[in-house]
């Protein structure tokens, strides 16, 4: 795969002047060295995040989204994982060049993270208050009393009722939605520049999902935090993000502003993801003649240790031809600000080369 991509000209990633970008990730490669071989979980990903912006990273499970997120905080388990190349610049400082202690000061302070599973992401033997106060004690130099007062304040901000009471409670006394609110309170307590939200609503009850998402958006506007939103749910993307990256098998396959992406998806994978969103009008249509069935993408994400030589999506792609199976397509600008890696996007979806 590396040899074929070497034959094609290296794509130039979309570059914006460095000063504008809060977070700039260039050619990030995170590999896992396992007995089964090298797993290229993240293989040359670049993106930039402006202040207050929301960037969505979309893809199925196992496509490298979460590893990208963990790489940003350098929380990859080493060994077997290792960030083998690239740079992650926060305000111009390369995080990959920092010492462990300097990196620790950034975690939870400048960049913080919300995880997918609120039921297990909070420490069961510590009070909610202590878990919020912990970050404040670590990074803000507050006294214990100040930190606990601020913890109550944070619980109020994330709209947990009776914060004075909740602050003394343990995670098991809170519902899933409440726990995710508490996680958000922890993540935002130090007013970070970047918030990474890794599937923040996936494990929640559908009725709670919208609430949590709205809360994130609202707090983002209020606090001016930039958000990297990792999700497989394009519905979530449409509601929250300004820019979208679609990842497949450790690489970017498409990238555009949210309106552009939904209007003109260029990659068959993105199209497949969109087609697999359940739609009410389709469900109603089922009673009529010529029913449109809910689409799915056949097959699963290939094992990252044994990728096919050509386009990684080719085995599942309805449009794949011989070239797709043989060579990895270049990541190129198909329209203004709209990038994709597909040999056939132009002929199939009428892309106009910019």
């Amino acid at each position, binding site marked *: 795969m590396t040899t074929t991509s070497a034959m094609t000209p290296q794509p130039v990633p979309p570059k914006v002047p460095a000063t504008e970008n809060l977070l700039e990730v260039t050619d990030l490669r995170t590999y896992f060295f396992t007995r089964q071989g090298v797993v290229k979980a993240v293989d040359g990903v670049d993106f930039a995040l402006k202040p207050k912006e929301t960037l969505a990273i979309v893809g199925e499970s196992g496509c490298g989204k979460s590893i990208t997120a963990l790489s940003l*905080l350098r*929380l990859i388990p080493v060994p077997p994982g290792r960030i083998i190349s690239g740079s992650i610049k926060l305000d111009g400082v390369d995080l990959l060049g920092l010492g462990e202690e300097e990196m*620790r*000061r*950034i*975690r*939870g*302070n400048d960049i*913080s*993270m919300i*995880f997918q*599973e609120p039921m*297990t*992401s*909070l*420490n*069961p*033997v*510590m*009070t909610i208050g202590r878990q919020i106060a*912990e*970050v404040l004690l*670590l*990074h803000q130099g507050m006294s214990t009393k100040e930190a606990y007062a601020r913890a109550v304040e944070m619980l109020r901000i994330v709209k947990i009722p009776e914060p004075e009471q909740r602050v003394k409670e*343990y995670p*098991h006394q809170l519902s899933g939605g409440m726990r995710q609110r508490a*996680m958000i309170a*922890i993540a935002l307590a130090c007013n970070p520049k970047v918030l990474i939200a890794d599937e923040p609503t996936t494990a929640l009850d559908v009725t709670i999902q919208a609430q949590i998402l709205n809360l994130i958006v609202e707090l983002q506007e209020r606090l001016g935090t930039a958000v990297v939103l990792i999700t497989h749910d394009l519905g979530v993307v449409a509601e929250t993000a300004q820019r979208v990256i679609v990842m497949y098998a450790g690489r970017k396959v498409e990238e555009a502003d949210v309106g552009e992406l939904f209007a003109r998806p260029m990659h068959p994978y993105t199209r497949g993801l969109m087609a697999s969103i359940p739609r009410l009008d389709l469900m109603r249509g089922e009673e009529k003649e010529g029913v449109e069935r809910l689409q799915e993408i056949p097959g699963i994400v290939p094992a990252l240790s044994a990728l096919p030589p050509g386009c990684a999506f080719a085995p599942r792609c309805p449009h794949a031809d011989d070239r797709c199976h043989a060579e990895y397509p270049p990541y190129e600008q198909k329209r203004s600000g709209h990038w994709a890696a597909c040999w056939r996007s132009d002929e199939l979806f009428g892309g106009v080369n910019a």
Partner: protein
Amino acid sequence: MGAYMIRRFLLMILTLFGMSVLIFVMLRIVPGNIVDILFDSAGMVNPDDKKRLEEELGLDKPIVQQYVTWITSMMKGDFGYSYVSEKPALDEILPRIPVTAKLAALALFFSVLFGVPLGVISAVRQNTSLDYFLRVVSLSGLSLPSFWLGLLILMAFVQYTGWIPIYSDQPRGFWHELWLLSIPAAAVGFRASALIMRLTRSSMLEVLRQDYIRTARAKGATKQSVNYDHALRNAVLPVVTIIGIEAAFLIGGLIVTETVFNIPGVARFLVEAIRWRDYPIVQSLVMLIAVVTVVVNFLVDMAYVVLDPRIKYES
């Protein structure tokens, strides 16, 4: 909580009752009583004397009646008289308790002091040479009987190098006594510390994989804080159970160790009493051990409530 405590207390009484029956019956199943032994060793053969002595000690009565007599007098605080010394059983036992209690407490203290931190280190440094070394040491700790270890220590440090004085009846002050007891305590506690270490290690490895540990790292917590505040507080729960169980096992280890190190404690006295079929002493001592074990396990259950907020004892 209140209801649980009451239920728990009643269960303790029941356990002790069962213990008392068991030890009473078992002692009398063992062939020979004090009278037989006296007659054998002293060469007395007059059956009348023997019968008179048995009557005097109440050994001729039916076993049920003997049991009822024992229990009722124990309720009144009368633990009987030693057959051997003819002194009240309590007067024989009580003076021997402190040294054994100190030895047991010291052994348990050592085992936790070494077992828990070494277990944490072993888990955090999983699959490093330090981890392998600690695992080998702990495995030998589990495999070596404490009396044999005690003998080795005696040979090495008492006989050859003379670094450690043999236990004398009159320790000079607190620190001297601590010094004298520390070696036998280490010999007894080694097994427990090895077990605690292995359990702490596996429990830590389990906890370190949890999501909330990743959260703690993402919050920027220091390595120390992640390992000890976040992980160990969760990992210590099964370890506490084992500490409770080991406290009971420790008494078994003490019996041999007190003998090997010549320490005039309760455990060695128990062996003597069994040899002489000194029923009042054996029964009182076994009941004492049973009470200690039951109380320790009760404390362990109470410790859970403090350590794990998810546990609530409600009816």
